[in-house]
């Protein structure tokens, strides 16, 4: 809601307050000022008049102040042709003290050119030499200072201004014609300088979507008086120009009609047009402008019908207005020329012939008040198509005056909201109706609208209103106790103090002992009943008391039992381990596409279509239309994005999403790792370091699992495992890894993850470098549940015996099998087995390999002799010979 301060001043005195004071008060009171836009209003010296230093809040500020000396009201007395240019004119202008000849190209002066001395001078905004204004010809807002110049041989040092030049609007088609009563010589800033606050209206502040609404709030926050509104003619419900029938009062609790006769449609006075522009609405004509003006002033949206059209439709019968829900499939051409197909959710304003308007959202084309000489716009300022279909009945159009029937109604806000969304018709009216407009203000809105229309059109207000009010809302009454205020807000207030605060926002308060019984004022819809109502009212107490004034205390309440979050804590430990082995954490979008993930499948695109995904119903782009099923796919994409990096070691921890038809999906958490590129970064003394391979990844995994204190870890080619285990740990089917360079990781007999080199065909689908890409995936639940207790190996006191043995075995014998046999046979005395060489050679024989181990023999309770160590060694060698046909290499 844009609030011109000049308009606010109609309702309250703001003397002694700077613009920033006002903006700050509103902001702290829950009406955040998002921007301050100056249009001539003098700017306050920044910060000088701050009320509270802790509330210093500068605002986004735009616009200019008008120099009081240099920009004044003036009058043009005669418009003369320029001697050398057809498109320029010379004006004989008087600024209150002096006569000037002013050069201008304004097209709206051409009509007056060469007509001699004007019988009624034109009042204009006049800027003198040295004045700072906006450049009317520049794109956007560019400040410029008026300088003396010669244009086509005529000296120019001053100008008559357009709205754009003064920062009022974007309008630069012509100069401003001020209202006839503008006092010549008065500084323009004093006459019409203004500043507009852009106020954010939260849903609980719907009552503030009007000048009166904000003024009421500001007056309460500042403890100032609100100026009385008057009753706009004091119309009573006794009009006889129409009848009303409401079918469903829950959808339409009130409907009010008023009538103005003999309206001459013409532009509104300039000060009205200017205010409308400042609140963001285009002025149309005095009728449309009056409905908008009244809406912005009081918050009640109005709708004007052409009464003559309605009378003609009614034939001999009196005009009767009905409101009802539409029939499914019923059609209505709205005044934007669009034929809309309605549903039974939409409420219509009708007469006995049929639908007239889409209630609370947009008028219908036929009954719209129509000014034949002007373009057609809707009552809310939405521009409509040119070349309209025939609107209304030709027989009643084209008259010099019209009779206007004015509607002010109350609607169910949910219904209006859904209708406005369904038809994609956001408007100032539906903004208000969809947040709730109290039925009690409908007659006030109509009365003001009628008054303004008559005033600006020369029409006559018909006596009385027609008012149907079948469902007046009960304004909630809530009991607030001093104990409630203490219990919830933490402040001690007496019942009198509570009543004083709430009276400021016009709650009716009755104090009885420690209880204040408050009744909601009849214009707000945000206060509930019972405990909810209490919370609503306490919010008002807090706001008016000042949230800044509430003390800060520490919770006296008992600390709940501290249960911790073992899963979260474990995950954080995992992160620390991962970065300690040199991996960098990435975080990816959870939303992806099946196509992107399908790259991880050897089967390619045929396969991915069979995969069930959690699908987004309203994706922002087709590239993010499902939730990921593979965390590894995300980390591979991250690697792809960094393809230029020499070396990458990345990990991500997070959920993947497995669908359950029409139910909430599973969200198992995963860990994925990717490594690729050089093992050691190139440097001045490191050239061509080898690329990461399988064993780099395996080394990281071993460190990680050791860091998690996991014991009994084993690695085996995945083919050795039943297929169902693979489904548990891989989000996608298919061969992700090179079949000869991958392994499944087990803790005990439980699979916790798998890793390996990415399959060459899979790698081809990613834009990755030449180096092998290593990847790993873990299921976090499986990994965490594999945790066992920590058991410390005592640090040995007696000296160890070290010995190396090398055995020759077939290539097919896995190293893990040889090591397992050594450990098994060696028992507790063999405390360490470390493979230090793998050797292949012709002398050993084709299909053979030599595995060299460094063994550590150690006893916990004595110093081992060489002979004892040798005995164990012989047992080991014998076992290896038996089990894997190993030969000791001498």
């Amino acid at each position, binding site marked *: 809601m844009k609030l011109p301060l000049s308009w606010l001043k109609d309702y309250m005195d703001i003397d002694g307050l700077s613009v920033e004071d006002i903006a700050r008060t509103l902001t702290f009171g829950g009406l955040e000022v998002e921007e301050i836009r100056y249009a001539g209003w003098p700017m306050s010296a920044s910060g000088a008049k701050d009320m509270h230093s802790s509330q210093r809040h500068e605002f986004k500020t735009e616009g200019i102040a008008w120099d009081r000396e240099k920009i004044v009201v003036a009058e043009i007395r005669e418009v003369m042709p320029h001697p050398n240019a057809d498109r320029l004119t010379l004006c004989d202008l008087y600024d209150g003290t002096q006569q000037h000849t002013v050069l201008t190209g304004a097209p709206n002066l051409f009509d007056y050119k060469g007509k001699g001395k004007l019988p009624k001078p034109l009042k204009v905004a006049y800027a003198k030499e040295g004045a700072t204004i906006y450049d009317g010809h520049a794109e956007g807002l560019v400040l410029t200072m008026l300088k003396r110049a010669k244009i086509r041989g005529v000296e120019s040092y001053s100008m008559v201004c357009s709205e754009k030049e003064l920062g009022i609007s974007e309008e630069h088609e012509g100069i401003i014609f001020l209202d006839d009563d503008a006092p010549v010589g008065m500084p323009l800033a004093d006459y019409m300088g203004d500043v507009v606050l852009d106020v954010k209206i939260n*849903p609980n502040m719907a009552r503030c979507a009007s000048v009166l609404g904000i003024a009421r709030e500001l007056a309460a926050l500042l403890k100032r008086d609100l100026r009385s509104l008057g009753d706009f003619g004091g119309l009573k419900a006794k009009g006889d120009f129409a009848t009303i029938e409401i079918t469903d009062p829950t959808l339409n609790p009130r409907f009010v009609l008023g009538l103005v006769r003999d309206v001459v449609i013409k532009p509104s006075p300039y000060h009205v047009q200017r205010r409308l522009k400042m609140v963001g609405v285009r002025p149309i004509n005095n009728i449309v402008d009056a409905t908008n003006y009244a809406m912005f002033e009081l918050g009640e949206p109005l709708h004007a019908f052409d009464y003559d059209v309605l009378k003609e439709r009614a034939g001999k019968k009196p005009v009767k207005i009905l409101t009802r829900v539409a029939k499914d499939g019923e059609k209505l051409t709205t005044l934007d020329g669009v034929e809309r197909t309605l549903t039974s959710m939409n409420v219509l304003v009708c007469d006995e012939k049929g639908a007239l308007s889409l209630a609370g959202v947009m008028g219908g084309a036929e009954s719209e008040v129509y000014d034949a000489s002007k373009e057609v716009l809707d009552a809310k300022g939405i521009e409509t198509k040119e070349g309209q279909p025939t609107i209304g009945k030709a027989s009643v159009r084209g008259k010099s005056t019209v009779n206007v029937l004015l509607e002010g109604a109350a609607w169910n*806000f949910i219904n209006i909201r859904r209708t406005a969304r369904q038809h994609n018709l956001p408007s100032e009216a539906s903004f208000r109706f969809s947040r709730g407009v109290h039925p009690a203000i409908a007659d006030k809105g109509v009365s003001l609208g009628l008054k303004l229309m008559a005033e600006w059109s020369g029409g006559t207000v018909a006596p009385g209103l027609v008012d149907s009010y079948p469902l007046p809302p009960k304004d909630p009454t809530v009991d607030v106790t001093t104990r409630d205020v203490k219990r919830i807000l933490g402040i001690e207030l007496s019942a009198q103090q509570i009543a004083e605060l709430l009276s400021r926002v016009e709650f009716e308060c009755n104090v009885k002992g420690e209880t204040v019984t408050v009744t909601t004022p009849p214009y707000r819809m945000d206060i509930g009943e019972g*405990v909810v109502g209490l919370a609503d009212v306490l919010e008002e107490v*807090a706001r008016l008391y000042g949230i800044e004034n509430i003390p800060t205390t520490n*919770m006296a309440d008992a600390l709940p039992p501290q249960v911790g*979050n073992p899963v979260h804590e474990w995950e954080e430990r995992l992160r620390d381990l991962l970065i300690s082995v040199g991996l960098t954490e990435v975080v990816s979008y959870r939303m992806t596409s099946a196509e992107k993930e399908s790259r991880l499948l050897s089967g390619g695109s045929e396969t991915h279509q069979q995969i069930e995904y959690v699908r987004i119903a309203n994706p922002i782009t087709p590239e993010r239309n499902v939730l990921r099923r593979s965390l590894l796919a995300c980390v591979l994409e991250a690697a792809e*994005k960094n393809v230029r990096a020499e070396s990458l070691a990345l990990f991500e921890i997070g959920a993947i999403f497995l669908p359950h038809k029409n139910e909430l999906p599973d969200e198992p958490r995963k860990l994925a790792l990717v490594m690729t590129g050089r093992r050691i970064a190139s440097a001045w003394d490191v050239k061509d370091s080898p690329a990461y391979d399988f064993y780099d990844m395996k080394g990281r995994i071993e460190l990680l699992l050791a860091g998690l204190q996991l014991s009994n870890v084993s690695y085996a080619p995945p083919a050795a495992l039943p297929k169902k285990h693979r489904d548990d740990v891989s989000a996608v089917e298919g061969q992700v890894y090179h079949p000869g360079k991958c392994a499944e990781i087990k803790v005990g007999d439980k699979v916790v993850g798998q890793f390996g080199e990415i399959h060459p065909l899979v790698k081809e689908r990613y834009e990755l470098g030449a180096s092998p890409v290593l990847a790993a995936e873990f299921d976090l639940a499986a990994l965490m549940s594999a945790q066992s207790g920590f058991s410390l190996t005592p640090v040995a006191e007696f000296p160890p015996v070290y010995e190396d043995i090398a055995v020759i075995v077939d290539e097919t014998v896995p190293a893990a099998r040889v090591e397992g046999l050594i450990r098994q046979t060696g028992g507790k005395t063999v405390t360490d087995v470390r493979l230090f060489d793998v050797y292949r050679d012709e002398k050993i024989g084709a299909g053979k390999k030599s595995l060299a181990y460094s063994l550590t023999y150690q006893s916990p309770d004595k110093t081992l002799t060489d002979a004892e160590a040798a005995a164990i060694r012989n047992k080991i060698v014998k076992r290896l010979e038996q089990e894997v046909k190993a030969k000791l290499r001498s």
Partner: protein
Amino acid sequence: MSDQLNDIEKAALDALDAVTSEDALQAWKTAYIGRSSPLMLVFAGLGKLSKEEKPVVGQAANRVKVALEAAFEERTKAVKDAALAKSLEEEQLDVTLPGRPAPRGRLHPSTVQLRRVLDILAEMGFQVYTSREVETDEYNFQLLNFPLHHPAREMQDSFYIEAEGRGDNPILLRTQTSPGQLRAMREYAATNPQNPPPIRIASPGMCYRYEQITARSEIQFNQVEGLAVGENITFADLKGTLTDFARRMFGQHARVRFRADHFPFTEPSAEMDVECFVCGGKGCSVCRRSGWLEILGCGMVHPNVLMNGGYDPKRYTGFAFGMGPERQAMLRYRIEDIRYFWGNDVRFLGQF
């Protein structure tokens, strides 16, 4: 004989003066005090001398031996010192050459900031409570006092999940961590429905909103939600707790202020600003010249939410607050573009 010893001494010392290397030292030692050196030959010849001459020559030879040995020690030290000085002078590295990088992993800046927030809250007794990312409309909105078709829903456009037959309870990506409030309250209340225990939790996690991805808005972001429920919790406690939090997070002198605001699931609601830690409140580009930074939204838990969670609003009160770690990280590290967070560019991630 004493002349001969004097000659030996003089020749030896003269020769020692010319010695400048370890090798020459050894050669000198062999030549002048070694087993077959002239001096040693004098000692060897002592037996052939008369009783009177023997002690005289012996003493004189001994004096020469001690003198030469001392001179040798001195010279040895000098040679070593010279060699060391020479090597120290010669072995000069170009200290400006880059050091060898040791590989180091890094946490994502969101994780870093999440941890900071959660660590501070943990010390204040708020325990981590995590809950699901895909939610029902009921938990994400309805139970949080966002009725169907309520205007407040407009503030949070949602991503919906394809699902049929769910009527007014569609599945969506959570727009806030607040559904965790309900899940926690219901979980706690179930342990003792007549006397539900007090709650103090912090819920971190990813949230999603239907937005265009720009420098300032993202479709996913982390949130940390705090919730305290008990029989004795006031708005003043909310202010005190969050003021303490801000001091821990932004420094002991951080000033905060509270402004009235609106959230459907709290009432009264407020926005907490902290004085801009970049400019100290003078106004700069980070705070957009306002001197203040919007840090979190907060308020007293709405009675409907308490009721939906199984807590009687006549007996229990509570407060809740929510903040965005990415926004905090943006302020802290002057990150101008939120798209960096999920861009996964190691040139960005490597800086933390």
